[in-house]
């Protein structure tokens, strides 16, 4: 493809005060090309994109940006948009209370004489944009009622409604499941074929390899390497990203499985929004000591709801929990924790961290009894305990008194893990344990999980990251529509089998049900 560069960024340098985020970064983007930018958290990817989008306006950085060979000086996001650059952010920025159509056409709703909105045209336009991303929802539907993945597609439809020439996608799949990711990748390829250039930022290397024409690796604010399609080498690229050799991504050791440690029977969870509907319908499973049980499924299949119901943070209609064969009454998370169950929640910021507290305080919040004499916290004991786990989990921060938000997502997640490692757990439930975590920290988290298993803990893991699931799991259950569709042992597992089960293909072929 010898097409001319649509976008060229030359020697871009960005500083915040005395800190240089990146130094003389250049990139160029050709028409109809998908360029992936990869690197660990803090490598400067998002900041670079903020320079491009005008969020960091001209004058706050050094270097030049050229679109179609013409130098641009964006004073703000509007100007960048006018030049045909659209951003799709990791965190969805839509209006939940407005309709799908209003969201898609935000800022350019068609008008009739007198300045009134031409709703009929608006709905038609919205429907067109939605069909481009393969989303089949009524345009008048309130956005709140859509699933996260549908919302993500709406934000892409919104970007497309403005007819961009360059589409920047920052971790667009972090909230999507496997098949939804498939769908999105397909859309991106189609867009590229139609001449729209894409910059793709993701931690999911598998996606990156499949979708990219070129991959540019950033580390510590510098361009380390650029690879073009035929020469992608997973190991080399990951080594470029982390700056050191990674022996094995998934440290799977064979741990002798012990007796049953957790058994769940007849678990039924009502749907959180829809009355009279259950999101999980009578499921049950067992976990043995030293075993990693993985729960696979699409968004809305009831994975998080199942594990939260076991932990007592979600209402359930029925369901018994047995630990080491003995029934446990879980009325709330207090009971679950007292019995020896821990949960690393899906949404770290919302339910895993306390933003105003230090790393130390976040670590010890569930273990205060253990470091106290009667009701009084022994500060020295607390420091020692926190420091021990700080070192053991190789948390990268200024120290245990640093604020939790001052560290990267991966290190935050290690702190959440430390919170549970401090306690003598029987079962640890991990809900998307590496979401938003960079490659280096991911591997470290896998090692922590491996260590836990070796010490005889039973693990239940929910993840949308299929390679991760396959790399770590001993046994897999596939959920779809709140039911278990398949149970697969490690020796029999393959990505295709899981995909078939979670999308319900097997099910409908084997027994045609009513509906």
């Amino acid at each position, binding site marked *: 493809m010898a097409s001319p560069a649509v976008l060229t960024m030359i020697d871009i340098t960005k500083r*915040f*005060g005395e800190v240089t985020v990146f130094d003389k970064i250049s990139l160029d983007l050709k028409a109809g090309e998908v360029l992936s930018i990869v690197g660990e958290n803090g490598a400067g990817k998002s900041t670079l994109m903020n320079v491009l989008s005008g969020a960091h306006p001209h004058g706050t950085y050094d270097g030049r940006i050229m679109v179609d060979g013409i130098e641009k000086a964006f004073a703000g996001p509007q100007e960048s948009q006018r030049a045909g650059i659209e951003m799709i952010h990791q965190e969805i920025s839509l209006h939940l209370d407005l309709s799908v159509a209003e969201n898609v056409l935000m800022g350019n709703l068609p008008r009739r004489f007198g300045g009134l909105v031409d709703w009929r045209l608006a709905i038609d336009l919205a429907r067109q944009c939605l069909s481009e991303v393969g989303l089949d929802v009524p345009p008048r539907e309130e956005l709140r009622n859509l699933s996260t993945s549908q919302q993500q597609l709406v934000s892409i439809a919104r970007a497309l409604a403005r007819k961009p020439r360059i589409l920047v996608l920052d971790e667009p799949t972090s909230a999507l499941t496997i098949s939804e990711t498939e769908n999105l990748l397909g859309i991106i390829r189609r867009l590229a074929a139609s001449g729209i250039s894409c910059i793709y930022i993701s931690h999911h290397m598998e996606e990156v390899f499949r979708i990219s024409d070129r991959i540019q690796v950033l580390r510590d604010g510098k361009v380390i390497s650029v690879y073009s399609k035929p020469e992608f080498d997973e190991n080399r690229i990951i080594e470029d990203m982390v700056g050191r050799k990674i022996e094995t991504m998934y440290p799977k050791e064979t741990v002798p499985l012990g007796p049953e440690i957790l058994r769940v029977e007849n678990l039924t969870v009502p749907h959180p929004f829809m009355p009279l509907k259950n999101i999980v319908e009578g499921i049950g499973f067992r976990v043995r000591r030293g075993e990693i049980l993985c729960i696979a499924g699409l968004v809305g299949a009831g994975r998080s709801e199942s594990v939260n119901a076991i*932990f007592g*943070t979600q209402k359930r209609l029925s369901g018994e929990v047995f630990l080491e064969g003995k029934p446990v009454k879980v009325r*709330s*998370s*207090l009971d679950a*924790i*007292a019995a020896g169950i821990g*949960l690393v*929640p899906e949404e770290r910021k*919302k*339910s*895993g*961290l*306390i*933003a*105003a*507290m230090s790393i130390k*305080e976040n670590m010890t*919040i*569930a273990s*205060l*009894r253990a470091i*106290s004499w009667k*009701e*009084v*916290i022994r*500060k020295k004991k607390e420091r020692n305990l926190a420091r021990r786990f700080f070192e053991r989990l190789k948390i990268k921060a200024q120290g245990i008194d640093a604020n939790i938000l001052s560290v990267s997502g991966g290190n935050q997640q290690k702190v959440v893990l430390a*919170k549970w490692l401090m306690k003598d757990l029987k079962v640890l439930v991990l809900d998307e344990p590496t979401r938003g975590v960079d490659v280096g920290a991911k591997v470290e988290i896998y090692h922590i999980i491996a260590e836990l298993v070796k010490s005889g803990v039973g693990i239940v893991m929910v993840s949308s990251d299929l390679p991760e699931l396959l790399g770590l799991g001993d046994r897999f259950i596939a959920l779809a529509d709140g039911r278990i569709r398949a149970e697969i042992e490690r020796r029999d597992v393959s990505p295709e089998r899981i995909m078939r089960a979670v999308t319900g293909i097997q099910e409908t072929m084997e027994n045609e049900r009513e509906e």
Partner: protein
Amino acid sequence: MSSLKKILNIKETGIFIPLALLCVLIGIKNPVFYSLLNLVDVLRNTSYILIIAIGMTFVLIAGGLDLSVGSFLALCGMVCGLGLKAGWPIPVAIGAGLAAGIAGGLLNSLVIVKLSIPPLITTLGTMYMARGLVLVVTRGTPIYPLPEAFSEMGIGAAAGIPFVVLIAIVLSLVAAWVLKNTIYGRQVYAIGGNEETSRFSGINVTRIKSSVYVIVTALAALSGVLMSARLGSAQPSIGDGYEMQVITAVIIGGTSLSGGSGTILGTVLGALFMSVLANGMNLVGVSVYWQKFVMGTIIIVAVGLDRYRRSTRRS
């Protein structure tokens, strides 16, 4: 880091410096400010507010709010006064007043926790209810005379320091220690910082949340009883608008309205600042009509400065 910088970085210095400046300025304008009589008076006035503000600090740190303290102050003062009038022994009457406070706090927490009605609404409601009860029972007239021995307690002092000031000091020390060093204190910060994470971490959120409302209302009751003793009567309109003064003192002291942070030292300084300001304006001769305006301006400036300081430190 130099020790000066360290001092400047302590949260409470945000209000300490304006407070010191205020004291100097008032002293220059009117040296009477520094007379023992006036200083003791300022401390006494501070204490009635501070006793409640200590409880309010717990409530705000836990991410809550309580508007009913002024009304419960009056209600509990009244209960105590009625008891005394009926000839109950002084300790029993005081106990009844405090029990009324604890009951009021339980009512607040029950509605907030069990019915999930936001604290702003709940305590707005109970604020009117409690004040209404006082008016129904007293028909708007003060309850007096109260026994000599009771009044003496209100006027009494040890080594020249009024009892109420001593009580406020002891309560401040205890509360500061509890917040800093106990499991309970840490959990109060935790649920204000992030209620959901706290629940996921096994903290009994319901219990901690309930407790702070009981604490603040019990302290409002204590303040009410002490005030009745001081005045020698239980006044139906007393404590009107106190909720705002108390909340202001706590917020000026650097406690966040959104929960998760704050200190008792800050609250003590905030309460002192409020009463020094009121006292100073009288001494300097600021028109009574202007005083509220000045107060309002200073609240905004003080909190604004604090926000600014924090935002610059973070970046």
